[in-house]
């Protein structure tokens, strides 16, 4: 109470100063200020968790500075320099570390199940989200078309509703999602109406877009997906890699997709069935820049077969940067060159993107792409999904999907991950009291 009185006094002083500077204030406005400030001061004393001394990188709010982050009631309540530790129930020293919004991995496969006949939909190639997300700083994944309108409900009940990670989804234009390459060729199963209803009528908060993938034929699948995207007013993500001979990506970008639609596996190299963005001479094809200018979004989707240094390195050198960094996490990518989201982000750090760019392309940018401005930032009032990274210096090696190496000197480690205000990963025990210290519980 004394503290509050002190605060009131200061506020009144501020108001008096403002009056002196010829601003007119009625008594009522002073009173309302007092009420607002008193409620703020109460919450300031009730910070649940204070991350103190870190370098905050929050691209959406244009913050890249040493600041403290205060969390209460599972939400961000303040981001500012020098928030006093005595205003918080628990303070974690994160000095020397980078504090960012919880990472969004826009391309993962987490419809884990035991249908042994299936490839990814309810199959063993999909993986449990929580096993890979928090340890890499990820708090939200977007499942990229594992399910379609016929089996999305099962995905939701079985995996989405039971994960700590926030799982959003792109719904496959194929009714049963990624059941198998054979089933994914069925044109009669590309149903824009049912796909869009699943989004607009049933799950508008979870399904954030449409996926078209693995199709061997012409542009039919993409066009149906775009039709569904128009009906549901959501973006379409295209994996355009299995056409023999290849379909033109210039035509895809300039004639079939809409601004805001997403091309994934941007740096893949399989010229027989997927047209590349960088030509054989190592030059980014001119229409790629045109497409990006038009608003086509380029997603990494690293995966087990879709990231090649000889595409990514020249592209970035020539100024073609991906809009979104993502993993394409599944059981065939997890132990290869991909590993986890922090490793994929580290790759881009070592190719020459700045840390701020890497964070932007893994937080604010994917949030914008999937029309979820509530995510991927540390704005006051947003759900407290936070990642804390260290950037190790040393000699590291990173492989692409053909096991070629790029040597690097920096590697990101997820030190602390917070989901809805709860610590869900703590690599080095920075949030726990020393076991035999007076602060420790009696356990």
């Amino acid at each position: 109470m004394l503290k509050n009185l002190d605060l009131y006094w200061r506020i009144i002083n501020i108001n008096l100063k403002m009056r002196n500077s010829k601003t007119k204030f009625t008594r009522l406005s002073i009173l309302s200020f007092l009420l607002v400030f008193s409620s703020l001061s109460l919450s300031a004393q009730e910070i649940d968790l204070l991350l103190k001394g870190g370098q905050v990188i929050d691209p959406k709010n244009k913050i890249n500075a040493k600041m403290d982050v205060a969390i209460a009631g599972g939400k961000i309540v303040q981001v500012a320099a020098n928030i006093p530790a005595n205003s918080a129930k628990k303070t974690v020293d994160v000095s020397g570390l980078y504090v960012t919004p919880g990472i969004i991995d826009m391309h993962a496969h987490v419809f884990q199940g035991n249908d042994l006949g299936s490839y990814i939909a309810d199959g063993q190639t999909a993986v449990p989200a929580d096993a890979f997300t928090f340890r890499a700083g990820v708090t939200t994944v977007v499942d990229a078309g594992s399910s379609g309108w016929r089996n999305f409900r099962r995905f939701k009940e079985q995996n989405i509703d039971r994960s700590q990670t926030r799982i959003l989804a792109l719904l496959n234009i194929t009714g049963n999602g990624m059941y198998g390459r054979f089933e994914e060729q069925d044109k009669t199963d590309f149903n824009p109406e049912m796909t869009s209803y699943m989004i607009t009528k049933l799950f508008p908060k979870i399904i954030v877009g449409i996926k078209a993938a693995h199709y061997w034929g012409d542009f039919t699948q993409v066009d149906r997906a775009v039709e569904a995207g128009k009906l549901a007013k959501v973006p379409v993500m295209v994996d355009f890699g299995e056409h023999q001979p290849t379909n033109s990506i210039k035509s895809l970008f300039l004639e079939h997709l809409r601004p805001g639609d997403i091309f994934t596996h941007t740096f893949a190299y399989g010229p027989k069935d997927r047209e590349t963005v960088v030509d054989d001479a190592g030059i980014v094809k001119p229409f790629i820049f045109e497409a990006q200018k038009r608003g086509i979004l380029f997603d990494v989707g690293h995966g087990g077969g879709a990231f090649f240094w000889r595409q990514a390195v020249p592209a970035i050198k020539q100024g073609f940067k991906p809009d979104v960094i993502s993993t394409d996490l599944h059981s065939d990518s997890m132990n290869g060159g991909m590993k986890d989201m922090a490793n994929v982000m580290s790759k881009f750090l070592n190719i020459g993107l700045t840390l701020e760019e890497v964070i932007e392309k893994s937080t604010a940018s994917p949030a914008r792409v999937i029309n979820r401005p509530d995510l991927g930032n540390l704005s006051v009032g947003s759900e407290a999904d936070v990642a804390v990274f260290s950037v190790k210096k040393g000699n590291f090696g990173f492989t692409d999907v053909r096991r070629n190496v790029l040597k690097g000197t920096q590697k990101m480690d997820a030190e602390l991950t917070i989901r809805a205000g709860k610590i869900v990963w703590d690599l080095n025990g920075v949030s726990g009291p020393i076991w035999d210290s007076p602060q420790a519980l009696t356990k």
Partner: protein
Amino acid sequence: MQTYFKTLKSLSLFLLITFFATNIKAQEIDLLLKGGHVIDAKNKINGKMDVAIKDGKIFRVAADIPSSSAKKTVNVSGLYVTPGLIDIHGHVFHGTENNYLSNSLDALPPDGFTFRSGVTTVADAGGAGWKNIDLFRKNVVEHSKTRVLSFMNIVGGGMRGVDTYEQDEADMDAKLTAASAIKNKDIVIGIKLAHYIGHDWEPTDKAVEAGRIASIPVMVDFGKALPPLPLEDLLLKHLRPGDILTHAYRYDQEFDRNGKMLEHKQAIVDVKTKKVKPFVWEARKKGLIFDVGHGGGSFNWSQAVPAMEQGFHPDVLSSDLHTGSMNAGFKDMANLASKFLVLGMPLADVIAASTWNPAKVIQRTELGNLSEGTEADIAVFRLREGDFGYIDASGMALRGKLKLEAELTLRKGRVVWDLNALSAPLAK
């Protein structure tokens, strides 16, 4: 005399041919791990040696094997080369039922956790019982790159839920369990008893009976009985030498009906005196095995630190991997091994307790070593020095200067994990 020379001649010819033959073989090493520090407890190796692999098997372990004899050489100098780790307490009977750790989402597909921490073999600790061991084989064993084994639950339906299924004594059948274990002896290496809350020894004795019939060890997760059963009786009267007490460093605070705090029924360290209880030493002498089984709630500094200080080291390090432990204090086997390093256990002992010791405990002595001719399951670790921290099951931290990281993992001679691209060519 003539025949003597003849024999000598043919003998030297034989030797010459043999020499050439081995030489030709030597030129056909598929993969050579060069310059590392090999720790192989079974073969009493703890020094700088090269490891050669051919046809998925260990071909040779020796100093200075020439690179020219290998198709591919990986420089592992500065790193530790060990047998692939064996984790005898995982929960990998993943599935989609709401069945706790039996065909359920609380159990995890192994490959996402094993290779990245140097593990090549994992034993599921009681997820399956005799009624669903076939499903376990079909869904998990046959679909994992990790070698998957099983401690089969004495409960026929496996670890389906603590409150009901796992209390059903009618579903605990020693004969059927043993019969199924024998039938599935390629994957079943032990019997598990866990979570029993009754105040009687029948389930324990049934598990031991099944173990006796099938000639395999029993692993017990003890301490849920109400009112408590004495740990001393379990170790000295009911279990056999070679049987396993898991969650060795667990300490749960428990209270009686009047809210009075009870001495935990399983704690091996006396909470008041901080001494390892005398009967625990006696049990070790008798041949009982003490397994870590860290899990989400079964490893506490308040038990582990005094026990380690008094020299009570674990026989076996293991994970108790499941969704409740993966993101908490446990994390992965390399993290767990690091904890014991910072508690003062020598690296060679930590490796032995994660390779050769568990191999002996589960009677699979073809595993956990780098003897010539064994399947080439290998882990290569970096021992990082710096400021690290580790948390226990109650969220308490301990700071340390060491951390093990799995750099390279080989299963059957194939690279299945390569953290820093040691085995890969440079990009052209």
